[in-house]
């Protein structure tokens, strides 16, 4: 006897059609419009607008911010996932929830809290002014807000990867006399490197692209405290659309690059996971 294992071809095709139309409208067209507008005045104009002094200063600040924020969150991510994946302790679920908190805080609130700490009316404001230090409306606050926003990015990717590896290999290395650090470098790290890579790339993309939190603390001083996303906003509000989208295309490339890495990592993982499953059977 035969029975339907899937929907009829007409239903199938129309469902695929609706899904694709939705994706074209909401994902493909926004991507297309970034590059189409960036190149509407030709490739020469495109590179000229990227060579603008303020835009280059913004790119520099963005790169510096990411170079500080990403390594700090990477060290935290490794420490947090080591504690959470390798050990069983009370309070673990609370810790996991707290690590995710920055994800459910509005970016504007993420900036606001640093203004409340270091702004002129903030707790440390008067003390900072006495000593002539500037945090708000200067790069330090931009970096702090970026660290806050991207705080869980590496940890979230690493925790499930480390959990799936188990403790067996580390225990074997330790029994054979390896030190803790040696075990980490030669046993754990090779096992988690793909998850680590994706976590870092994702963290970096968010760090370079953060807008709301940075916007609150930056002060928008051209050439000094503008990151690339803030520079895009200024160019756009000046009706300099081509230059705004040229700068935006750099960040769109970064997003596409992130997606490529993600697909590669998933492909790698799938092979590894399948191998693990086969060995168990």
């Amino acid at each position, binding site marked *: 006897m035969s029975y*339907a*294992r899937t*929907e009829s071809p007409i239903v199938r095709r129309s*469902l*695929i059609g609706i*899904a694709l139309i*939705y994706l074209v409208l*909401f*994902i493909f*067209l*926004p*991507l297309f419009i*970034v590059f189409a507008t960036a190149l509407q005045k030709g490739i020469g104009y495109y590179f000229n607008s990227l060579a603008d002094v303020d835009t280059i200063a913004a790119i520099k600040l963005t790169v510096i911010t990411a170079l500080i924020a990403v390594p700090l969150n990477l060290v*935290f991510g490794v*420490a*947090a996932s*080591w*504690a*959470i994946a*390798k*050990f*069983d*302790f009370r*309070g673990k679920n609370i*810790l996991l929830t*707290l*690590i995710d*908190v*920055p*994800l*459910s*805080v*509005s*970016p*504007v*609130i993420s900036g*606001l*809290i640093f*203004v*409340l700490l270091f702004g002129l009316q903030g707790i440390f404001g008067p003390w900072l002014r006495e000593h002539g230090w500037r945090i708000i409306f200067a790069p330090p606050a931009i970096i702090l807000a970026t*660290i*806050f926003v991207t705080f869980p990015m590496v940890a979230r990717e690493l925790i499930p990867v480390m959990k799936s590896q188990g*403790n067996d290999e*580390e225990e074997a290395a*330790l029994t054979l006399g390896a030190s803790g650090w040696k075990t980490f470098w030669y046993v754990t790290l090779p096992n988690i490197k793909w998850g680590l890579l994706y976590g870092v790339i994702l963290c970096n993309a968010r760090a*370079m*692209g953060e*807008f*709301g939190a940075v916007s609150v603390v930056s002060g928008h001083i051209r050439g000094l405290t503008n990151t690339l*996303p803030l520079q895009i*906003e200024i160019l756009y509000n000046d009706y300099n*659309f081509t230059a*705004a989208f040229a700068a*935006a295309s750099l*960040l*769109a490339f970064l*997003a596409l690059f*992130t*997606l490529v890495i993600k*697909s590669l990592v998933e492909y790698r993982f799938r092979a590894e996971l399948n191998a693990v499953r086969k060995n168990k059977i």
Partner: protein
Amino acid sequence: MFLLKQKTTIPGFHLALGYTVLYLSLIVLIPLSMLFIKTSTISFSQFWSIVTAPRTLAAYRLSFGAAFIASFINIFFGFLIAWVLARYNFPGKKIVDALIDFPFALPTAVAGIALTTLYTQNGLLGQYLYKLGIQSAYSWTGVVLALIFIGLPFIVRTVEPVLQEIDAEIEDAAASLGAGRFQIFRRIIFPAVLPSLITGFSLAFARTIGEYGSVVFIAGNMPGKTEIAPLLIITKLEQFDYSGATAIALVMLIVSFILLALTNLAQWWASRRIGLN
């Protein structure tokens, strides 16, 4: 509080956990507690008059309302896309699958100017929508459109793995016993994906409530009409009204935490019901 439950040979527990808690406190907990400390410096009646001012209420209505509508629309289309990706084959499927995460990876400011350019009166899509009488930019509709873009990957990515895991043998068994495709969908597939739909909705909703970058360009920003709550916070800050900004922020934070707790509860209830069945 953090006590090891059993002895282990793996070293570094105290170092790793100590560093984790220290860094978490310095970067997240202490800065975030400023919202409560700052709000405690004003009286409750002051606080109440800030958060119930007509302009504040209108901003909350827009931020929460548009986030709800967008996440609701995304439930249906997100489910449909997850279904198509999990069950059917078509050319270009791998590229489509990879592009689902694009809104998540794209910086919000870039999304904001791209969506605005698409949906203004002269835009690629806006020119048709305006002719149909739909004001797709600088309006509520514009905010919803931007939040649909932002929320989509959250729903697809939570539902897709669950759809893939449903055992084909159960469906075959139901079909061999005479169940039609719709009956199988209603009795087997839908109950299995319901918890993930709730999770996806809550993730998308939580993310879009406070969304700023992708919305602020397309919103119109008219006080009391098309001004989102995060923008109102920034406006108050620019007027050096720190207490006002903080009070509005604190309510947003508490509401989104309560909503997350409620959806966790709903998800727990839904998965328990299936377990009992």
